[in-house]
């Protein structure tokens, strides 16, 4: 039981980052980014290619994160432009369609060029005991990375002027413009941050097992579920929901079966919408 919960926490931290990446973009741009999982995969493939070329894991990982940030910012600057001209329901729908299109294009290109593409970062070392449960070093590294990313984000949003500006755009865009904040610049930066998070997720996930080229749509689904349960637009909520759902996922996989987990997670999202549409910490 303890081992299952710990495994769930490791997974949950990565889920949390996925949810944060999804929820930030939704909060700022009103766009549900259906290409998000593909950005994770893109980062994974970039890192694996660089490592095949003999680059050190660390450098490859950093470049992979930057590449994912760049791709995400590029989506904002090109594909998303017509979306921002729309408002309300039209914006949501056009955003869904265009990001879904982007997802198919990225997935298509990656599986065509690298049909066996996968990233597996093997971390050497004997398992370390955590409250009596032996944990793989890779899992611990992955969790530490996710936690560091979460803390950096919270500090960024809580303690910097720019971070405060980001929150202000989420809460009232006109108010933000009136105090001198440029919403489109903030949006591009947040797309880049969201892409960088996708890169971190790719690294974290590949430390406990291979992340393959076709994992994208499943990752998008997880990100969407976590973001909905946490409350779209709420960073802390997404992180909390990710950790909770990671544990739920591990428990249901262990006691019922792997086949049921996605159904249970989707039910959690559906239930959230019915009982508490704002999500755990949403406004």
């Amino acid at each position: 039981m303890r081992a299952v919960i710990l495994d769930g926490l490791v997974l949950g931290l990565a889920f949390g980052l996925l949810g944060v990446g999804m929820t930030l973009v939704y909060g700022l741009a009103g766009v549900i980014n259906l290409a998000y999982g593909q950005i994770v995969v893109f980062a994974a493939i970039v890192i694996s290619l660089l490592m095949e070329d003999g680059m050190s894991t660390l450098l490859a990982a950093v470049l992979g994160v930057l590449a994912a940030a760049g791709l995400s910012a590029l989506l904002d600057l090109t594909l998303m432009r017509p979306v921002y001209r729309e408002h309300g329901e039209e914006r949501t729908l056009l955003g869904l369609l265009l990001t879904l299109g982007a997802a198919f294009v990225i997935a298509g290109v990656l599986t065509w060029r690298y049909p066996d593409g996968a990233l597996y970062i093997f971390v050497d070392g004997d398992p370390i005991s955590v409250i009596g449960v032996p944990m793989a070093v890779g899992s611990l590294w992955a969790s530490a990375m996710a936690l560091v990313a979460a803390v950096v984000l919270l500090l960024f949003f809580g303690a910097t002027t720019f971070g405060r500006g980001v929150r202000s755009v989420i809460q009232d865009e006109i108010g933000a413009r009136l105090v001198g904040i440029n919403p489109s610049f903030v949006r591009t930066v947040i797309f880049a941050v969201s892409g960088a998070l996708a890169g971190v997720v790719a690294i974290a996930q590949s430390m406990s097992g291979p992340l393959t080229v076709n994992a994208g749509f499943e990752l998008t689904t997880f990100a969407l579920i976590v973001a909905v349960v946490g409350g779209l637009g709420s960073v802390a909520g997404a992180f909390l929901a990710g950790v909770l759902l990671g544990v739920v996922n591990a428990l249901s996989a262990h006691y019922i079966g792997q086949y049921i987990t996605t159904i249970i997670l989707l039910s959690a999202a559906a239930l959230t919408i019915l009982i508490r549409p704002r999500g755990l910490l949403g406004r």
Partner: protein
Amino acid sequence: MAAGYLGESVIDDVDVEVRSGEAVVIVGSNGAGKSTLFRAIAGLIQPMAGRVVLDGKDLTRRPAYRIARSGISYVPAERHLFPAMTLKSNLHLGAYPRRADPATLELVYDLFPRLRERQRQQAGTLSGGEQQMLAVGRALMARPRLLMLDEPTTGLSPKIAQVAFEALEGLKNEGTTLLIAEQQVPLALSVADRGYVLENGRIRLSGTAKELEGNPEVQRAYLGVA
């Protein structure tokens, strides 16, 4: 200047001038075009014709955030505060992208002592009057060259409205340049140096506050004098 929405002009041929240190009021009934004029000056909508000039610098068609950084702070009637942030965070954001200047913060708290008491409260939970004070305070944090207030007494009781205008009087005496749109004409004329009467999107009358107060038309339409 001319401006409006979806190709329909709401205001036409409106020329308003505010000199440094002056308080100027725009008087007019609902729908006369006061908010449209302010939104066009602030860059929230693009004017169809005309120019926005501050200290000889042409700000026409700049995005709203640039106009705000150039020294025009606009407090809309809807206030547009950041409801889930503390009062203090709202004030700090007023100085964006710079850090909030402690002296300016003190000035705002001295002007509205209520705000000092409620620093840690979420802006969304404040009363209407407190939100209005916060909106003005947030605009002041940028140390604007021109402060534009759209219907600052909206939703306030007559007593609080009186207090609000006393605060505006204080601001004016501090040297802040003010452009105020107001339906509460007597109150507005009491702080203003000059005023314009806007009707159906055009300037109908203009003059010093005294001249407007003495004008029979203004008296009949806005001052309740038979």
